[in-house]
C-alpha cells in the first residue's frame, strides 16, 4: 500500500461574522517546473537560492512589445534599460531582438560597447557623466541626453577643445498630471528652462540637437499621462522646427510602464489594474499624432521600457530553512532568500508559489529571509500551505532590479542561470564566495598575523 503524502499537522479556527476579504485559499497549482525544467533539478545542480531567467519569456515580451507599438506607430525603436538588469546574457537577448542600449553610467556604457552595441545605438542618460565618459560618447556618436546645464557646458567645452561635434538630446520634465511629479531630472518644460537649453544648443555649431526625452515616472498606472507627455514633446518638437529650423529626429518617451507585480498595500492584483502595453501604445501614438506632423516628418519613437519587459522573465528559487511560531502563535517561515537579494520585496507583494504538491489546507505565515537582521522580512503576511524544511518556493516577477540592486550582506549573491529557448540551462553569473569578497579588501601590513609590527605595545 502506498503511503499518504505527509504534511505538517495544521489546525485553523473559523471566525464567523467577520468580513473576509481574502475569500478561500487561492488554489494555485504548485510551480514545479520553469520552462519545462524541474525546480528541484535546478536547485540541486545550481544551489539555493537561485535566480533563473527565461530567454523565451524575454523574447516573447520584446517581440510582443515591438508588435503592439509598430501596429500603432510607424517608426519605433526600443532601447534596453541597462539598470533594470545588466547581466550580459540578459542584455544580449534584448540586443538580438534589435533593442539598442540605454545606459546611465560609465560602466553600463562600457558593458554595452563590450557586447558589440554601436555607439550610435547607445542612449547615454543620467545625471552623472564624467568628462571622460562624455568624450568617449561624443567620439562614438552616442546619443547623449543632457540632464542639466553643467553637463551642457561640459559637452560644449569638450567639443571646442577636441574639435568634435556631439549629437545630443535633452531630458525634459513636465507636468503630466501624475503625483509625484518628477522634476529632478532634466529641464522643466513649463517654466521655460527646457526652451533655454534648446536655444543654447541650437546656437552652438558643435552641438546637434537630435532628440527630446522624457521619463515621467516609474511603475506608472496611468496610460493617459503618456499621452500628455507624448503630446507635449511633439508640440515642442514642432516649435523647434518652426522657430529654430531644427528637425527633431526622435522622441524618447523613456520607460516606467508598470509590470504585473502587485505593490504592497495595493488591494487588487496588478493584472487587473495595470494598463496593458496596448493602452500605453495607444496613448503614446495618439499623443504624437495629435501634433499633426507631416507623415515624412514623423519622429522616431524611442522607448526605454525595462521593468515591464523583464520582470516576469525572472524567478527566484528559495528553500525553507525552518518553521517557527511567533509570540502571538502566528506561523513564521524562514527561507534562504533574504531582502539583500530580493530588494523589491520592500515594495512588491511578489507571487510566491510552492514548488511541490501540497494539500488543501493553508495558513497565514510571515516569510523571513536568512539574515540576522530585523529588516529581513520578505513578506509580512502570505497564505501558504504547510511547508517543511527543505521545501522549495518559487518567487515570481523578480527579473527587474533585483539582480542590479542586490547586495552582498551577511549572505553572498547566488548563482544566476538562464533557461535557454532550446531547454538547456546556462550559468550566467557565478555565486560569490569569500575569495571574491576578499579580493577587493586590503589588510594593512601591521594587522597581518605574520608581521612583527603587529606586536604593538598596549
Amino acid at each position, binding site marked *: 500500500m502506498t*503511503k*499518504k503524502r505527509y*504534511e*505538517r499537522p*495544521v489546525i485553523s*479556527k473559523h471566525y464567523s461574522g467577520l468580513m473576509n476579504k481574502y475569500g478561500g485559499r487561492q488554489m494555485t497549482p504548485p510551480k514545479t517546473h520553469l520552462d519545462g525544467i524541474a525546480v528541484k533539478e535546478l536547485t540541486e545542480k545550481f544551489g539555493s537560492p537561485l535566480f533563473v531567467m527565461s530567454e523565451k519569456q524575454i523574447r516573447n515580451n520584446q517581440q510582443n512589445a515591438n508588435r503592439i507599438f509598430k501596429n500603432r506607430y510607424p517608426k519605433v525603436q526600443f532601447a534596453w534599460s541597462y539598470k533594470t538588469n545588466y547581466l550580459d546574457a540578459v542584455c544580449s537577448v534584448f540586443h538580438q531582438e534589435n533593442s539598442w542600449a540605454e545606459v546611465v553610467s560609465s560602466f553600463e556604457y562600457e558593458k554595452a560597447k563590450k557586447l558589440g552595441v554601436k555607439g550610435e545605438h547607445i542612449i547615454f542618460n543620467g545625471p552623472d557623466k564624467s568628462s571622460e565618459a562624455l568624450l568617449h560618447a561624443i567620439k562614438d556618436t552616442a546619443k547623449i541626453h543632457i540632464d542639466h546645464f553643467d553637463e551642457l557646458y561640459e559637452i560644449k567645452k569638450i567639443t571646442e577643445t577636441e574639435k568634435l561635434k556631439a549629437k545630443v538630446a535633452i531630458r525634459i520634465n513636465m507636468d503630466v498630471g501624475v503625483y509625484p511629479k518628477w522634476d529632478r531630472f532634466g529641464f522643466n518644460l513649463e517654466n521655460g528652462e527646457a526652451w533655454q537649453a534648446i536655444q543654447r544648443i541650437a546656437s552652438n555649431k558643435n552641438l546637434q540637437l537630435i532628440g527630446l526625452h522624457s521619463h515621467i515616472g516609474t511603475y506608472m498606472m496611468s496610460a493617459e499621462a503618456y499621452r500628455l507627455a507624448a503630446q507635449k514633446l511633439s508640440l515642442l518638437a514642432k516649435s523647434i522646427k518652426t522657430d529654430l529650423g531644427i528637425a527633431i529626429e526622435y522622441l524618447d518617451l523613456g520607460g516606467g510602464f508598470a509590470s504585473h507585480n502587485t505593490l504592497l498595500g495595493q488591494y487588487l492584483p496588478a493584472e487587473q489594474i495595470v494598463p496593458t502595453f496596448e493602452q500605453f501604445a495607444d496613448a503614446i501614438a495618439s499623443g504624437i499624432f495629435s501634433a499633426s506632423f507631416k507623415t515624412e516628418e514623423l519622429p522616431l519613437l524611442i522607448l526605454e521600457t525595462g521593468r515591464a519587459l523583464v520582470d516576469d522573465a525572472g524567478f527566484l528559487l528559495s528553500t525553507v530553512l525552518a*518553521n517557527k*511560531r511567533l509570540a502571538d*502563535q502566528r506561523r513564521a517561515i524562514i527561507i534562504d532568500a533574504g531582502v539583500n537579494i530580493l530588494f523589491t520585496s520592500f515594495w512588491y507583494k511578489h507571487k510566491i508559489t510552492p514548488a511541490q504538491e501540497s494539500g488543501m*489546507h493553508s495558513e497565514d505565515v510571515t516569510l523571513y529571509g536568512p539574515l540576522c537582521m530585523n529588516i529581513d522580512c520578505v513578506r509580512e503576511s502570505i497564505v501558504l500551505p504547510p511547508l517543511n524544511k527543505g521545501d522549495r518556493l518559487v518567487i515570481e516577477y523578480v527579473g527587474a532590479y533585483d539582480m542590479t540592486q542586490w547586495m552582498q550582506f551577511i549572505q553572498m549573491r547566488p548563482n544566476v542561470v538562464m533557461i535557454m529557448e532550446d531547454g538547456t540551462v546556462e550559468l550566467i553569473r557565478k555565486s560569490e564566495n569569500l575569495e571574491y569578497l576578499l579580493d577587493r579588501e586590503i589588510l594593512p601590513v601591521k594587522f597581518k598575523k605574520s608581521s612583527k609590527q603587529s606586536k604593538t605595545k598596549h
Partner: protein
Amino acid sequence: MTNYHLQENLAVSDSGFLFHASTGETFTVNETGKTIIKLLQQKKEKDEIFSQLVNEFDIEAGLLEKDYEDFINQLKNFSLIEVK
C-alpha cells in the same frame, strides 16, 4: 502517560471539519491533523500515535516529534486540550 487530554464533545468529519460542541467553535484540520485528533480521541499514547502516522504517511518517526509538539501547542492555544 500523557499529561494532557483532548476536550470532550469534539466531532471531526472525514473532510477535516472540527466542531467543538461545548463552545460552538469550528475549525479545519488537514489530513495529518485529523488523524492525530482521532487518535487522541481514542486516548492513544504519543508512541502509538507516532507509529500509526509512520504506517499511514510517508514520514520517518524521527521527524515527527517537532511537528507533533507544534500541533499540540496549536490545540492548547485554541483550548482544545486540557493540560493536567
